[in-house]
């Protein structure tokens, strides 16, 4: 999953980036409203964490522009502004959640997971595909109850495919949602990650659809048969 954090406080954005990376997310940072708006407008993020008091363009305007342009990714507003009218303005602009500073990173994570879950139509943090279980909360995966060792890129790949289980996902889409901006993107590396992941969770679970991409099979779904 790829997340954009729009926050002008360098220390806070560094802390958040590190925490989110540890939790298995690809993270991009924007330090002002203009850069934030541009990134959100051009990159396919799975969720955005947005500060309100930003340089150049304020957060509410950025959000309004995104929504006016048809961007539907979930947005969590993270701000020191705690007035009810500010919350109302944030939600009216199209926010999906609102968290005020100071905050605990765990709470932010939990709320972000809830947003991603809701966006993908799931009800819990864990996604089960037969005996394969992906725990987004702990950033871990289990096969038959046994934990498997995954690198952060492998987990991101698995988590994204699990969130969109049963659907064919192109290499480009995977690249866009698994790597952050700083990463040297080469779609060939996706094949390497898929190969490694197949070895760890079982080759038959990931189907290659020639010319289209990959599909994580859901044994409980009839569609994947």
């Amino acid at each position: 999953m790829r997340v954009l954090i729009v926050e002008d406080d360098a220390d806070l954005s560094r802390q958040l980036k590190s925490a989110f990376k540890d939790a298995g997310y690809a993270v991009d940072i924007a330090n002002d409203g203009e850069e934030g708006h541009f990134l959100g407008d051009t990159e396919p993020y799975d969720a955005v964490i947005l500060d309100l008091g930003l340089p150049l363009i304020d957060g509410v305007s950025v959000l309004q522009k995104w929504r006016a342009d048809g961007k539907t990714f979930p947005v969590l507003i993270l701000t020191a502004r705690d007035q009810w009218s500010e919350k109302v303005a944030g939600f009216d602009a199209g926010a999906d959640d609102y968290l005020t500073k100071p905050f605990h990173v765990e709470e932010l994570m939990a709320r972000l997971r809830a947003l991603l879950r809701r966006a993908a139509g799931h009800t819990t943090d864990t996604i089960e595909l037969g005996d394969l279980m992906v725990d987004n909360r702990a950033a871990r995966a289990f096969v038959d109850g046994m934990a498997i060792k995954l690198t952060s890129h492998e987990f991101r790949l698995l988590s994204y495919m699990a969130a969109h289980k049963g659907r064919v996902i192109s290499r480009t889409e995977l690249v866009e949602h698994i790597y952050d901006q700083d990463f040297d993107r080469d779609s060939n590396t996706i094949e390497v990650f898929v190969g490694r992941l197949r070895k760890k969770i079982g080759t038959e679970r990931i189907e290659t659809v020639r010319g289209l991409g990959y599909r994580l099979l859901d044994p409980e779904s009839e569609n994947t048969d």
Partner: protein
Amino acid sequence: MPGVKRSPPSLVSSLVRAAALWAVPGLILVTLALGLVSRNSSYRSFDEPLESTVLGLIASVETREDGTLRLSRELPDPRYQRALSGKYWVIGTVENGDEIAPILSSRSLYGASLPVSKPTISALAEQGQDPVRFAAAGPDIDANESLRAVARQVVLPNMTTPVVVLAAADRAPVIRSIRNFILTAIVLLLVLTLGLIFAVYAQVRLGLRPLFDLGRRIADVREGRAASVEGDYPPEISPLATELNSLISHNKSIVDRAQTHVGNLAHALKTPIAVLRNEAEAADTTPSHIVAKQTDTMAAQVDHHLRRARAAARGQAIGVRADMDPVIDGLVRTLPRIYRDKDLTIDRTGETALIFRGNPRDLEDMIGNLMDNAAKWTASRIDVHVEKMEDGFCRVRIADDGPGLTADEIETALKRGARLDEATPGSGLGLSIVKDLADAYKGSLSFSRSKAGGLQADLLLPIAVEA
């Protein structure tokens, strides 16, 4: 110029201008009226001797047997004998319709005739025996003589055609006297006008002196020379001084309270800072759980004191008002999105378009926290009902269908600084601060059991009543 706000004119100049506005035209009218009256009376007393002369001439003229006329006795005024003396008489007949051919005339005319205008001739014919008064040019052309004349047309005994008997006198003296009178009147009234305007100016300055004095006293307070507005003021101004003093003391109490809160906050932060400093001195790396615990304490203290300071400072805001609908409607719209796992229904009923008499942020804090609390505890439904009360208050009733509170829990909830639900995340300030705010606005907050078995909060708030 559009967009430029002009400052209102000074009170003194407005009052003086208003006085001048009625005094100057009034005095001009008086001058004109006086001039008219003086002119009429001057001419009346000027005409009287002329009319007597005409009557005297009629009485003393005799018709001889040959049809000629003569005077049985000369008029006593010697000026009728002296050439171009300014006093003249003529007895003659109208010829060619616009000229009097003299039969007899005073020696002073020196053989000259007096020109008479056509309208005068016709007026003579119309008036019959009555005298006609008119102006005419005199015989002394060098002196540009202007005469005033009185004439009658009479038919003398033994005559068949009427004759005109006319007496005239130089009217220069009367014109001079009228002009002198008017000039004197103008000078006197001008002096009177200036005097009046000055008197009004002096009176206004005198009347406004307490206000100027008040201004100086307020400046003293602002610049720290005095603590309050002092001095004896007339009853019209004394309420203003009293109100200013209460405003000053209100201001002072806000500053005092804010200082107290800053002090409290500073003291509250000292302990966690001390703990952190000691830890830092004791070891190179401070255990993260200690940092986390102390920063949590600091954050909680900052939060608590900030909110209490806000509540204390803003409670009795003066002259501010807030529209209630946007606040309630915004919350009705937003809370279901915040608590989206709940399938929340908020039903808003009752009055709309009410104006809260206080700070918009306080209104948001009070209603926001009550509704947030209801949303936190409700199963799925919240009822918000706004009702206008009689004495300038309104009641906002927020009822939920959650577990509700017992009497003891209500008491605890309203205790200062208490929070019943440390475990449940929420953005609320705690109900006790809502109560503090409501009390500060002379309103109230009370709880009871709702119809659905949950909590019902009744918030009484002052509203602006349209005059």
